């Protein structure tokens, strides 16, 4: 019989604490598949953020460190420098990476730190109950922008992939969406490419994953996927913004 699905070896076979329809689980699976394909599970050290993915170490089957809020790129740098042979990845939400940890991600990219960052952009603070993130769209209602994010008050949401792609040390920067099988297939390729970039010693790599938070968006899972595609993708265009070969492509 042909096996059509198996849990990646780099994931522990257990249920996650993520809400129904949350795309954190998809992102975990794609990362684990890349680690499996590259056969590097036994030299991988992951770094978990503060955010809904704080327990990522309960799901990945590799060594892990849990970092303070926003500092995962700094922790990953410490690991990277101490263990030249390790494969090091950080997994961060948009509050973690784009707000409190904005300095750490920029400087990890500037140094061309040989780490891979999986950046979950769900346009909201999930873990703390749905407050406004720097990635919250203009007009989007959150618990701290109850009338919708106002441009004149909170500015425009930050486009991390574009910003980091201006930094020479960032060798691979892509934005993908986790909202449909076709998008997930593209996301899988991007995540694999990010790890390839690290293994090739080319520099810093980051994949921004447009993600859902049905719970704090106040939507059913399918509705959330649609909202992502109709609202987030137009503001956050998908594609590769920087590749080790040079060049960018929209997809």
């Amino acid at each position, binding site marked *: 019989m042909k096996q059509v699905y198996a849990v990646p070896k780099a994931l522990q076979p257990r249920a996650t604490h993520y809400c129904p329809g949350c795309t954190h689980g998809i992102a975990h699976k794609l990362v684990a598949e890349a680690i499996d394909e590259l056969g590097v599970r036994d030299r991988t050290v992951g770094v978990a953020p503060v955010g809904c993915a704080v327990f990522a*170490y309960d799901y990945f089957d590799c060594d892990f460190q849990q970092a303070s809020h926003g500092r995962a790129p700094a922790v990953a*740098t410490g690991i990277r420098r*101490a263990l030249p042979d390790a494969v090091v990845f950080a997994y961060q939400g948009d509050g973690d990476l784009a707000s409190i940890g904005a300095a750490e991600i920029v400087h990890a990219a500037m140094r061309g730190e040989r780490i891979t960052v999986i950046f979950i952009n769900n346009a909201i603070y999930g873990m703390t109950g749905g407050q406004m993130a720097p990635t919250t769209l203009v007009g989007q209602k959150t618990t701290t922008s109850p009338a919708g994010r106002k441009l004149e008050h909170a500015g425009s949401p930050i486009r991390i992939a574009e910003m980091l792609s201006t930094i020479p040390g960032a060798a691979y920067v892509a934005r993908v969406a986790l909202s449909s099988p076709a998008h997930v297939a593209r996301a899988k390729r991007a995540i694999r490419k990010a790890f390839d970039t690290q293994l090739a010693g080319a520099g810093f790599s980051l994949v921004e994953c447009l993600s859902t938070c049905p719970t704090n968006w106040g939507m059913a899972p399918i509705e959330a996927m649609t909202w992502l595609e109709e609202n987030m993708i137009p503001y956050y265009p998908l594609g590769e913004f920087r590749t080790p070969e040079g060049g960018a492509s929209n997809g």
Partner: protein
Amino acid sequence: MAERKLFKGNEAVAEAAVRAGCRFFFGYPITPQNEIPEYMSRRLPEVGGVFLQAESEVAAINMVYGAAGAGVRVMTSSSSPGISLKQEGISYIAGAELPCLIVNMVRGGPGLGGIQPAQSDYFQAVKGGGHGDYHCIVFAPASVQEMVDLTMHAFDVAEKYRMPVMMLGDGVLGQMMEPVVFPDPAPRDLPTPDWATNGARDGRATRLINSIYIKPDDLLRHNHKLQAKFKQAQVDEVRCETVNTEDADIVLVAYGTSARVCRSAMDRARSEGLRVGLVRPITVSPFPYQVIADVARTARAFLAVEMSMGQMVEDVKLGALGAAPVHFYGTPGGIVPTAAAIVEEARKIAKAEVGK
């Protein structure tokens, strides 16, 4: 026999760390400790190590966390405002039970304060500093040689207890030149600790460096474990020097730079017929409470001397527990006290206490 060399305090700390097997340094520039990162930026590459100037103290301490969690000897150094920024990271390091060395060359505060030597960050260093119930082991050297010896010792202690260790100095100690002897670096293989997250090779179970215990019962147990380690350190790691305390009426209590001045003050007072002694805590955390308690039985009074508005004096009171009065003389703001002023203070106290 190793030769004596003239070394600046800051550079001596750096060289001692290298000789102790520290191969990783993450830091951010701040006066008065810049000689440490500058020395490390030259020295570590020579021994196959890594010096990295971080984007901030916040990043630096988290790099220390990552490297310590990977199982290597690692350090950072800074001064007061930078140490404030490191506090969240130090709390995480304590919570995750990681060994490392943090050098703090204290300057006057609060705020941007000044760049002159001070002892006004004692509370921050010994009472926790960051959030949560934890302690660092904190050494307070009073000479360049002692900075060397304690730095070499610090890494062993940090690893023994899996606790962050702080070297509490100040601008005077960092800048002064003194002849030092570096113990020969112990030619030993530093084994990778069996908790390090360095890749789950050869089928070993995966490992986790972590400070989150979401279930209250687990966090309670974790806190008890952390406290038990510190209690053990209180038994085994306290270091303290006492001079002329046996017959002393007035006992000065001071650490670091102010202890050096107190030593001259003590000699001067003795030559003038005042029976003055000195207690010099070498570990300020754990604090030598028992030494204070013992001396309190015979002394008429203590005089705590600090380059601050009075912080360690509270620990002296805790040690004395009312058995002898505790007085305070302080010079905050980056001022080093003079021996003459301390003698004058001791004389006033002697008159009052002996007259009782």
